[in-house]
C-alpha cells in the first residue's frame, strides 16, 4: 500500500525527523489562511500515490493570494495518468543549501533492508546515480538487529559529510529506518532531504510503501487505505476478494490461476501475435467463491471490451480440489454468460482429483460451451487459426 506524502510525513515526524510546517487544505479559504500563517509564501502540493508530480507541475510555489487561488483550483481538478488528486498539502517553503537523497528499501538478493543515500537529491536522482556510482552510498542492514548509529555514520561519511552535518544526517537516516521497521514498510524514501543554511535536515517529501502482507498487524495503517482514490475499480474489487486482477489493453482475456504460469500464458499469447487483456491470479487453495469472483471479473471485462476476441483459460492444479475450480467456473458462467468464445486447457493431479476426476471436470466445462484442449498449445493454435481471421462471432 502506498501512502500519500502527508501520511508518510506524519510517520517521519513521529520518528523524530523534521518536516516542513503545514497541513492539508480542503478549500481556497483554507489555502489562503495557511498562506497567512506560513508567512505569505508557501508550497501547494497535490497528493497522489504515484511519483512524477514535480515534473507534471503538480507541486507549485505560490506567493500571492491570486496565485494561491489559481494554483489551488488547478491542482484540485488535476489528474496524473488517470489518478485524481486526493488532497492538497500546503507547506512552508524551506531554504536549502543542499538537496540530499535518503531511503530504506529491500535488497531482494541479500534479503536485507538496504539504506540508499546520495548528496545529489532531486527529481533525477536515479539517472544521476547510475551515471556516477560514487555519488550513491548503500548499506545492507542486518535485519536481526536493525540499523545502528555507527552504521548510519558510515553512510554519511561515504557521502563526505563531516561534523554536525554528519551527525544530523545520521539521525535522519536512523529515523527513516525506524519508520521502515516500525510500519513494515518496503520503501521509505525522502527525496529531497534538505540541508538548510542553518545546518538542519528537513524531509521535504515522503514516499512510503507498506508491505500489504503485514497490514493485518497495523490496524492504524489499514485505516489509511480507506482514503485510497482513483484506482481501477475492478482491480480494487479483486484485491478485496482475495485475488489479483490487472486490466490491460489487449484482445485475449486470460483466466488462469498461479502467477507464474499466468505470466507464461501471457507471454505465449504475445508469442502467437495476440495481446493479453488482463493479468489474474488467485492464491493456492482458493475455494469456489474466489474462483467464481475471479471468473466473473474476467467475463465482465470480456463482455464489456469490444477489443477482446476470446477468453483463454488454463488451470493446472494439484493442491486445490478440482471441484473448487470447476464449480466456481460453472457458477460464474451460468450467472453471467460470456459473449466471447472460451478456449483453453485444464490439468489436475494428485489431491486435486480426490473428489472429481479430470474427465468429469472437463465434461462440466464443455457443458458451459468451453472448448477444452488437452494442451494449452492446442488451444493457442486454435485461437491463431480462428480468431485471427475474424471468423468468430
Amino acid at each position, binding site marked *: 500500500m502506498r501512502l500519500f506524502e502527508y501520511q508518510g510525513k506524519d510517520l517521519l515526524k513521529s520518528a523524530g525527523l523534521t518536516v516542513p510546517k503545514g497541513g492539508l487544505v480542503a478549500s481556497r479559504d483554507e489555502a489562503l489562511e495557511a498562506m497567512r500563517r506560513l508567512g505569505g509564501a508557501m508550497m501547494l502540493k497535490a497528493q497522489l500515490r504515484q511519483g512524477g508530480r514535480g515534473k507534471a507541475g503538480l507541486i507549485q510555489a505560490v506567493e500571492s493570494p491570486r496565485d494561491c487561488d489559481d494554483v489551488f483550483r488547478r491542482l484540485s481538478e488535476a489528474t496524473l495518468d488517470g489518478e485524481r488528486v486526493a488532497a492538497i498539502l500546503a507547506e512552508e517553503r524551506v531554504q536549502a543549501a543542499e538537496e540530499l537523497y535518503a531511503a530504506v528499501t*529491500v535488497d*531482494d*538478493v541479500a*534479503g*536485507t*533492508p538496504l539504506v540508499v543515500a546520495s548528496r545529489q537529491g532531486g527529481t533525477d536522482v*536515479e539517472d544521476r546515480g547510475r551515471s556516477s556510482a560514487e555519488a550513491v552510498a548503500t548499506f545492507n542492514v*542486518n*535485519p*536481526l538487529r536493525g540499523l545502528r548509529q555507527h552504521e548510519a555514520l558510515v553512510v554519511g561519511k561515504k557521502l563526505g559529510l563531516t561534523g554536525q552535518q554528519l551527525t544530523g544526517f545520521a539521525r535522519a537516516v536512523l529515523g527513516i529506518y525506524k519508520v521502515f*521497521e516500525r510500519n*513494515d514498510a*518496503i520503501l521509505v524514501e525522502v527525496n529531497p532531504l534538505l540541508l538548510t543554511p542553518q545546518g538542519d535536515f528537513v524531509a521535504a517529501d515522503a514516499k512510503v510503501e507498506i*508491505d*500489504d*502482507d*503485514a497490514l*493485518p*498487524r497495523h490496524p492504524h495503517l489499514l485505516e489509511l487505505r480507506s482514503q485510497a482514490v482513483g484506482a481501477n475499480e475492478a482491480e480494487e474489487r479483486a484485491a478485496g476478494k482475495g485475488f*489479483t486482477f*490487472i486490466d*490491460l489493453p489487449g484482445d485475449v482475456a486470460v483466466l488462469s*490461476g*498461479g*502467477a*507464474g*504460469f*499466468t*505470466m*507464461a500464458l*501471457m*507471454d*505465449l*499469447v*504475445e*508469442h502467437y501475435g495476440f*495481446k*493479453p487483456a488482463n*493479468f489474474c*491470479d488467485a*492464491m*493456492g*487453495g482458493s475455494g469456489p467463491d474466489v474462483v467464481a469472483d475471479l471468473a466473473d471479473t474476467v467475463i465482465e471485462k470480456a463482455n464489456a471490451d469490444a477489443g477482446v476476441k476470446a477468453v483463454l483459460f488454463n488451470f*493446472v492444479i*494439484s*493442491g486445490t480440489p478440482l471441484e473448487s475450480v470447476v464449480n466456481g467456473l460453472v457458477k460464474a458462467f451460468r450467472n453471467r454468460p460470456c459473449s466471447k468464445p472460451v478456449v483453453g486447457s485444464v*490439468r489436475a*493431479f*494428485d*489431491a486435486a482429483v480426490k473428489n472429481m476426476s479430470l474427465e468429469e471436470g472437463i465434461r462440466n466445462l464443455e457443458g458451459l460451451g468451453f472448448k477444452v484442449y488437452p494442451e494449452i*498449445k492446442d488451444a493457442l493454435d486454435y485461437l491463431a487459426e480462428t480468431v485471427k481471421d475474424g471468423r468468430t462471432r
Partner: protein
Amino acid sequence: MSILIDENNKVVVQGITGGYAQRQTRLMLDYGTKVVAGVSPGKGGQMANGVPVFDTVQEAVAATGANTGVLYVPAVAAMEAAIESIEAGLKVLMIATERIPLQDSMKIKWLARDAGAWVVGPNSPGVISPGKCLLGSAVPSVVTPGPVGVISRSGTLLMEIVRYLSKGGCGQSTCIGIGGDTVIGRNPVDYLRLFDGDPETKAVVLLGEIGGLKEYEAAEFIRHMKKPVIAFIVGRFVPLGRRMGHVGAIVRGDRDTAESKRRALREAGAFVADTPWEIVELTRKVLD
C-alpha cells in the same frame, strides 16, 4: 543422487492439524516420504493421518529424530514457527505459507543462515527428489527420475515444465519450488551450486520471472558452472510497475525486466528458451 532431500529425510509437519496441511501430509505419505511427526500447539498426544502430534518441534525431534521440516502455519504465526524449527536443529525447512510479511522473511533467512539451516520458501510449492522424497505438493505425479535439476519461483510453472520435461524424456534429479516471495531462504544461485556439485545432475533448468535481481546473481555463477543451464524467464509482456501475484515480481527499473534478465543469462552462457516447449528441445540437446 539428488540435492537437499533423499530417502534419509525424516519429516516433521508444523501446523499438521489444518485442513490444507492434512491433505498435503497425505500426499507426502502416499509418495513414501518419511513423515514421522506433526506439531500443533495444544494438540500434543493426538494423531493426524496416522502421524503422532506434538506440542513443540523440540519434542517431536527428541521423540522421532526428525531432521527436516515442512511448515503450513498461517502467515501471522509463521515466523515464530520457523524460528522454533531452526532452533530445534532442523537442517532443511520448507515453508509453504504464503503472504508472510517481508520483514519476517528477512529475519527467518538470516536466523537460518546463522544456524546453518537451509530454508526453502516462503511461498514454496515444495521440493521433490523423484522416487525418494517429497516435501509439500510439488509435482509428484508428473516427475520421472533422471539427470535434470529444476529450479522455479512459481508452483504452476514448475508443474507444467516438469510435465513437459517428463513427456520429452528428460527425467529429473530434484525439482524445487524456491518460493515466489521477494525475500526467500535460499536464492537460485544456492541451488545452482548444489546441482553443479551433484554427480547425478547433468543439466539444470532455471525458471525465473520479472522482478528482483536474483537472476543476475545466478548468471554470475552460471559463467563458472561445469553443467549447462537452460533458462526460461516469464513476464516479458507484463507492464512495468504493477503488482503481480508474487510480491517479488514488482518491476522496478530496467534490470527487473524479463528481457534484461534473458540477456544477462544468455551472456553468461545459459541457453535461453522462448516457449515452454523450447525448454524441452534445449534440454534434450544438451543431454545428448
